[in-house]
C-alpha cells in the first residue's frame, strides 16, 4: 500500500483544524469540523482497500473472489451516523446562539473567561 492515502487523510484533518482555529463564523467552524471528520473516512477506506478488490457483496460474485475489507465499511457507516448526530446538534446550538446574541462570530462570544 502506498503512503499517499495516509498523507491525504492527515492533510484533510489538518486543513479542517486550521479552518476551525481561524474561523470567524460558527457555521463555518462546524463545517470545518465535518471536514476534519471526513479524514477518518479516507483513512478507514484506504486501510480496507485491496488491489483489484470489488464490493464485499457476495450476491453476484463467486465466493472467494477478492473483495475490499467489509469491516472498515461498517466502521465508516457508523462514523457517518456519529458525525451526523454531532454536526446536527452543534448546528442547532449555533442557530440558538444566533437567535440569542445576534452574532455568529466566535470572537464576539466573550461571556466565559478567566
Amino acid at each position: 500500500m502506498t503512503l499517499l492515502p495516509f498523507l491525504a487523510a492527515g492533510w484533510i484533518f489538518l486543513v479542517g483544524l486550521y479552518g476551525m482555529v481561524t474561523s470567524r463564523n460558527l457555521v463555518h467552524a462546524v463545517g470545518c469540523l465535518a471536514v476534519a471528520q471526513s479524514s477518518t473516512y479516507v483513512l478507514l477506506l484506504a486501510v480496507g482497500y485491496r488491489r483489484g478488490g470489488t464490493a464485499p457483496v457476495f450476491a453476484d460474485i463467486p465466493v472467494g473472489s477478492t473483495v475490499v475489507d467489509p469491516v472498515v465499511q461498517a466502521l465508516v457507516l457508523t462514523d457517518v451516523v456519529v458525525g451526523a448526530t454531532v454536526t446536527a446538534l452543534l448546528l442547532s446550538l449555533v442557530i440558538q446562539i444566533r437567535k440569542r446574541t445576534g452574532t455568529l462570530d466566535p470572537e464576539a462570544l466573550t461571556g466565559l473567561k478567566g
Partner: protein
Amino acid sequence: MLDPSRMLPLTVALPLLGAALLVVAGRLLPRTANDVLATAVAVTTCAALTVLWLRAGDGRVVSWAGGWRPRHGESVGIVLVGDRLGIGLALLAAVLIVAVLAYSWRYFDEPPERHRGSFPALLLLFEAGMCGFALTGDLFDAFVFFELMGVCAYALTGYRVEDSRPLHGALTFGVVNSLAAYGTLLGIGLLYARTGELGMAQIGAQLAGHHTDALLVTAFVLTVTSMLVKAAAVPFHFWLPDAHAVAPTPVCMLMSGVMVELGVYGTARIYGTVFAGPHGIPAHAYQHTMIGIGVLTALVGAVMCWQQRHLKRLLAFSTIGHTGLFLIGLGLLDPHATAGTALYVAGHAGTKAALFGLVGVLLDRHGSVDEHALHGRGRELRLAGGLFLLGGLALSGLPPFGTGLGKALAEHAAGEYAGWLTAVYVLVSAVTGGAVLRAGLRVFGGAGPAPRRSHADIETSGEGEEPEVRDPRRAVPLTMTVVPGLLLAGSLALGVLPGAGRAVAAGARAFGDRAGYLADVTGAHAALPPPPPPTAWTGSGLLLGLLSCGLAIAFAAAAVWLPAAPERALRVLRRPAGPAHRFAVVPLRRLHSGLLGDYLMWLTVGMAALLLAVGAQL
C-alpha cells in the same frame, strides 16, 4: 439468577430502552409518571450493576455480542469486558444518575410542554454511554460510546436554550471533544491497519509481533488525546470550566463526578490493554508522560481554582486539580496507586457532586453563584452551609472520608516513586479544599469583610445567572439538600467501611493484570496475579490527611480574615505576592479566553507536545 455474562449488555441496553420509552411516552404521561419511570429504570440499572460487581469477584465478566466469539485467534465480534474497576465506575455513574434524578425531582419545575420526558431521557442516554464506555473491550465501540456520552453531555450542557452562555459553553465543549474523538478514530484506523483487529485485547496481542515505530506512537497519541481531553488534562482542559460554569447543576454533578474521571480511566485502560505489551509503548515513557501531564494539570487546576469567584467555575477547576492527581495515580502503573486512585475517584465523586448540588441550592435561592455578591446571603441555609463546609473539608482529604483514604493510599505510592509527588498531593488538595472552605465561610457564614467588587476583564463573575427554577418564593425542595447529604455520607462510608477498600484493591489488581485480561477475552487461562494491595489507614496517611486539611483551613481563614488586618501588615504581604500575581497568575487566567479558536490551538499544541514527549523517550 441470570448468567453474569448475559447481564453485562443489559446495563447498557436498559437505560437506552428507558430513554426511548421516555421520548415516546413522555409527552403523553404527566410529569410525575415521567420521573417515576426514569427513576425506576435508573434504579434497575443500578441493581444489575451491583449484582455484577458482586459476582465479578477478582476476575472478569466477558460477553460476546451475538455469540460472535473469536475463532482461531481472529475475531470480528464485539466484546464487553467487566472487571471490578470498570463495573465499579459504571456503578458509580448509575448511582449518580439516581441521585441526580432525585435531586432534580422538582428542579426544573416547568419542563417544555411537548417534551416532558426529554431531560430524564437525555440523562438515561448519558448513563448508557458511560456504562458502555466503562465496560467495552472493543476500541471502536469505545469511540462510539465516547461520542454517545459526549453528545448527551453537550445537549445537557446547552439544555437551557434561553440563555446564550450555556449555548456558548456547550458549543465549545462539543467542538473540542468531537474533534479529539475524530483524532481517536484516526488512531483506531492506524491500529486496525497494523493489526487487523479492533478489540483492545486482540490489538494488544497482535502488536507483540510488530515493532515500536512512528506509526504506533502516532496511533497512541491520537487515541489517547481524546481521553485526555475528556479528562481535562492541561492543555486540553479549557472546555471544562466553560461547560461546568453554564451547565444545569444536576448535569455538573454528573460531569464532574464521573464523566471526567472516565477519561482518566479510558487512558489507563487503553494503555494497559493495547499498548503496554512487548513492542508497545514502554512503561517508563508512559509513566513519565502521564506524571508530567498530571502534575501540570493538578497545579494549574489548583491555582485557577483559588482565583475563581464564580462558584461553579471554582468547583470545575478543583475537578481539574483532582483529575491531575488521578492521572498521576494511574500513570504510576502500580496496583497500590491504582487502588488508592479508584477510591479517591469514588470519594471525590460523592463530595464534588454534593458540593455542586449545594451550589444549586444557592442558585435556586438567589439567582447567583458569585462568591462576592452572595457574601453572607446564605446564612439562613444552615444545613446546606454546614454540608458545604464539610464537603470542603472532605475535598481537602479529611480522614476518614473516602477522599482522604484514597489520597493517602495514592500519595503513599506516589511518594515511593518520587518523594516530591507527595507534596503535590497535599498542596493541591489543600488549595482546592481551601478555596471551597473560603467560599463556604463567606457565603454561608458571612465571615470576614465583604470582598470589594472588582470588574476585572479577566474573570467571569457569577452574577446575572438565570435561576434554574421559576418560582423563588417556594421553599427549597427537600431533595436538594437531602441528596447532597447522602452523597457526602456515601463518600464518608467509602473511607470507613473496610469492605469497600478491599473490594477496590482486588479490582485494582485485576485492572493491572494485562495477561489475565488478554487471556479472559481470548478464552485462555492465565496465572493468578499477585495478592491485592492493602487498603487500610496508616499513621502517615492519617497525618498527611490532617496536614492538608489543616492547610486548607489556614488558607481559607487567611483569605477570609486577612483583609480585615491593619493596612501596614497587608502591605508587607502584598509586596512579594504582587509580581507573582502579575507575571504568573494573570497571564494564566488570560489564557482561559473563552474563544473556540484558542482552545483548538491548544489542543493542537498539546497533541504535538505529546507526540514529541513520547517519541523522544523511545
